[in-house]
Each structure stands twice: as structure tokens, then as C-alpha cells.
């Protein structure tokens, strides 16, 4: 993936649960394009109308707590979100996001350092985050080499597929 992700921040407070990221009443949808239409609908009904490819989600603690529904990660990926930066994440959502190749970046105090619409520059490999609007520089927890390889391949399935091809297996 691109080493530096630049995007405009959409900010959210603590404990944005999976029902706010993707309401349960839409769980009968499976096509990512359809799923994308309801991204963040429970937290910000205007989100899908204003979000642009490469924009970033910045949140306080426990982002994605709640359900295991992978729709919550699919909807953000399909909506074009470049990275999710949060003080902390719910376990299953975090895992789902990484599996799908979305950089879910743990950065303590990120929420208090970013306002809606700030332009951020995120170095995924080093964990350095520059708020270009305010000039503030933050340091996120860097990813392990393995997680970086998942992100570089656009998700765990592509990574494994590539590894199997290298081994001559299908």
C-alpha cells in the first residue's frame, strides 16, 4: 500500500459501536457497493454523502466495539476510507479491518489532537501522523512486519493467495 496516506478527517467520539458503523437492519446486504451506502449511518447520516476516497476516520477509544459483523469493516473499505485512527479499537472489528487490508491504527490521544476536516498525513510504516492543518505531530503504535505485509497486499486473502502462488500451489 502507499506509504503515506493523506486525507481529510471525519471525527467520532468514544465507543462507536458496530451498529452505528453499520446498522443491523442492513445485514441482509452482501454486495460491497450496497453495503457502502450505509457506512457510519448510525453515527452520522450525512457521512456517505460527504466522504471521499482516501478520507480518514479519527475516533476516540473502543472504535468498533460490539458485533462481529464484517460488514462494519467492508462498508468503510468500500466507502473508500484510507485509514482508521483511534485511541483504541474493539477486538473483532480491529481484526476484521486488518484482514481486509484497512490500516486500523492505534494512536493514543489522536481524537483530542484532530478536529473535523483536518488534513492528516499518515505514514503507515513508521506510525508518524502529521496534522497538516494544525502542525501537530503524533506517533502511533507501529504495525508488526506481518501486519504490514497484510496491509501491503490489500488484505490477508491476497497475501495468502500470493504466498501459495509462490509455492506453486493453488
Amino acid at each position, binding site marked *: 500500500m502507499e506509504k503515506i496516506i493523506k486525507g481529510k478527517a471525519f471525527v467520532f467520539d468514544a465507543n462507536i459501536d458496530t451498529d452505528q458503523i453499520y446498522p443491523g437492519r442492513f445485514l441482509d446486504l452482501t454486495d460491497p457497493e450496497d453495503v457502502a451506502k450505509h457506512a457510519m449511518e448510525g453515527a452520522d447520516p450525512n457521512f456517505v454523502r460527504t466522504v471521499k476516497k482516501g478520507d480518514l476516520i479519527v475516533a476516540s477509544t473502543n472504535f468498533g466495539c460490539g458485533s462481529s459483523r464484517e460488514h462494519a469493516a467492508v462498508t468503510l473499505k468500500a466507502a473508500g476510507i484510507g485509514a482508521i485512527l483511534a485511541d483504541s479499537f474493539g477486538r473483532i472489528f480491529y481484526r476484521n479491518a486488518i484482514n481486509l487490508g484497512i490500516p486500523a491504527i492505534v494512536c493514543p490521544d489522536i481524537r483530542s489532537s484532530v478536529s473535523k476536516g483536518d488534513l492528516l498525513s499518515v505514514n503507515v510504516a513508521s506510525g508518524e501522523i502529521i496534522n497538516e492543518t494544525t502542525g501537530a505531530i503524533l506517533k502511533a503504535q507501529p504495525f508488526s512486519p506481518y501486519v504490514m505485509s497484510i496491509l501491503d497486499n490489500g488484505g490477508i486473502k491476497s497475501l495468502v493467495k500470493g504466498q501459495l502462488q509462490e509455492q506453486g500451489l*493453488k
Partner: protein
Amino acid sequence: MAMTLAEKIFKTHLKDEPFPGTKVLNIDVVLCHEITTPIAINDLVARGKDRVFDTNRIKVVIDHVSPAKDSQTALQGKILRDWVRRHKIKDFFDIGQNGVCHSIFPEKGFIRPGNTVIMGDSHTCTHGAFGAFAAGVGTTDLEVGILKGVCSFRDPETIRVNLNGRLPEGVYSKDLILKVIKTLTVKGATDCVIEFHGDVVKGLSMESRMTLCNMAVEAGGTSGVCMPDEVTLDYLWPFISGDYKDKKAALEEFKKWWSDEGCKYAKVVDIDVSDMEPQVTFGYKPDQVKNVTEMAGTLVDQIYIGSCTNGRMEDLKIAASYVKGKKIAPLVRAIVSPATTEIFRQAEANGIIKIFLDAGFCVTNPTCGACLGMSNGVLAEGEVCASTTNRNFNGRMGKGGMVHLMSPAVAAVTAIEGKIADPRKFRKEAI
């Protein structure tokens, strides 16, 4: 070295440790339902890998929207049914024999002490009540589980919760877990296993222990866990009696999973329950919990008794003991949804269904429907529901709806009063 129950399960199920802190585990049981599994199935088919690791260790149910409410949910069921037939998976529970996943799978005896269990459902932590490591996973991890029978996890840290004292009248396991979540907060157990100990837990039935473990995830927990003991053994005995010489031998085997004296806990929490009141949530987070006396009088539109948290026989009995001979308040509606077909059948046979019907309850078939706002009891904007389910998230039971989480006892007396009420002020009838 002294180990926790989860550490012992990780050690015995370890397949690989690709890098420090992450372990790939062999999975004993992969559970499936029609919301998260069809996406995995479609992907496996598309990738030419339509295989399952072991037909005997995959258990399948249709529960979330049951029966299907429209052609889209019917398609989700169809994908699951076709897959079950294709792979000859024998443990499949379709409508008419089904139940809410975390109620029906234990009822069939599928979960044993020391097991590793995954499912594409966050309340999979329920099964830790049997002394298993049971965790909810996303569809991608589920897909790997279906194909290879493995799943990777971070090394588990464990929080020990000691529940001691005497459980007061009118206070049940739902109240205990709401109190625990209030104490730990909604993120206090993230990436941790929560072990439940203490005299109170020892005295709880398996059904009550499942309620306790069911909501571990609402504090962020990966799995809730109880030590498998005589109560676990009595529940499982019909399924395992052929595997052991006698009950004593089985119990000795169970005890091997117990956390060792001196094992390392990330945190220890002590709660004395003796002066506890029934608990009720007030906001959109499961840790926003108050005593029932502070919440009494809150008007409600709907009462819902059911779900993987509180739709078991014990829950229906408790609720019925308050409802018997009474009518629900005018202008409220009440729904009771027995969690499995077997529970429905028993409740019919012992007169509990009639008690609810006579009181004016709507009795539905087993389904998760209303709890996650998909079917069978969704709220309109501005409506309030007194519910025995597990999540009060904003919009969970329908856009603009408010959910107050509570025990079946509080829900039952709330139905009678039309506003949140205190079960300790009501007489219980014999069932």
C-alpha cells in the same frame, strides 16, 4: 508454571506460533448462522475452495431472521442450506427445529470443557460457561476456520471477577453481569478473557452461567469463562456419559482445565452481591447501568423477553412466575421468544406459554430478530423497549429506538406495570 484456563487451552490447541504473542489454534467446534456464514461460503466457492475441514465439527443453525422475512433473507438461508446439503453436515437446525445459536448449541451438548470454539457472532463468548475458550470472529476468520479448522489469537490475558456474598431475592445472573460491565466499563476487558469465580458463580445453574458469559463481550472480553464443575457435569452428562467410567472420572478430567493457584491475572475484581439491587441500563452503552429503584417509573412501549442472553427455560420460568394470573398494562405490547424449539415445547407442556398468552403476551418462534433490529419486534423511532437482550446500542432494535437492558424478572413486572418496575415489590407465583 501456574496457568489460567485460557492459557491451558491455548497450550493444548497450539498449532503454530508465527511470531511472538500470536498463536494459531486448532479449533474444536466451528459454529455457523445465516448472517455471517453465507458471505464466507460464497467466497470459498468463488475461490474454488468449497471445502470444510470436518463435517462433524461444523454446527449450523438458521436463527437471525427465522422464518425469512423477505427474499433477501430467504437467499441467506438458501445459501446456508445448499452448503449444508453439499457437504453433508449433519448438525443443521432449520426452522421448526432451530433456536438462537448460543442457546441451541449448548442444548445439544456440542460444547465441552477445554474446547476451542469460534463463530461469526460476537456473543460466542457464551460458551465459555462450559470452561471453553469461545470467541466471536469476523467472516474472514470464520472462512479460514471452516476451511482449515484453525484460527489465530493474541496470547490471552485474563481478568478474574470474584462474585461473593448471598444473591438477594429478585437479583439474577443478568443483574450480576450488568454490574460487572458497569465495573469494568465497555472497554475494560478488551482482548481479555473474563473468568467468573466465587460462591455466587458456584451456585449458578448452567443457564445462569451462560447469561453471565454471554455479555463478556459487552466489556470488550474475548470470552467469558466459568470453571467446569459438578453443575457443568450434570448438564453435560446425558451427552458424555459414554466417554467416562463414572461422574467422578469426568469431574477429575474437567478440573484439569481449572486455572491454577498462583496463575497470572491482568486484574482481579471483587464484587459482594449481598446488597445488590436488580440492574437496568439507561443509555446507549451496556456499562450505563443503574439500580432499578433509580429507573423505576420509566415508561415503555414494548417488553421483549428472549435472545441468546435470556430466552432459556429458567428465564421463561422466572418471568412467568411474576406474570401468572396477571395482565400486561394497557397500551404496552409484550413479546416472549423462547430461545429454542425445545424450550418452546417444554414451556408449552408445563403451562408457561399459556401464562404468557393469558397475560396478553405475543409468543414468537425462536429467533434473534428483534435484538439486532432485523425482524419480529423492531421499534419505531422514539419508542422504548424493556428488554432482556444484550445490547442497548443506539438504533440497535430499530432506528431511533431506546433499549433498557434488564433481567427477565424486571421485564416481567415492567410488562404488568407498563413502566420499569422493581420485581422485589411483586409476589412470585409457583410455576
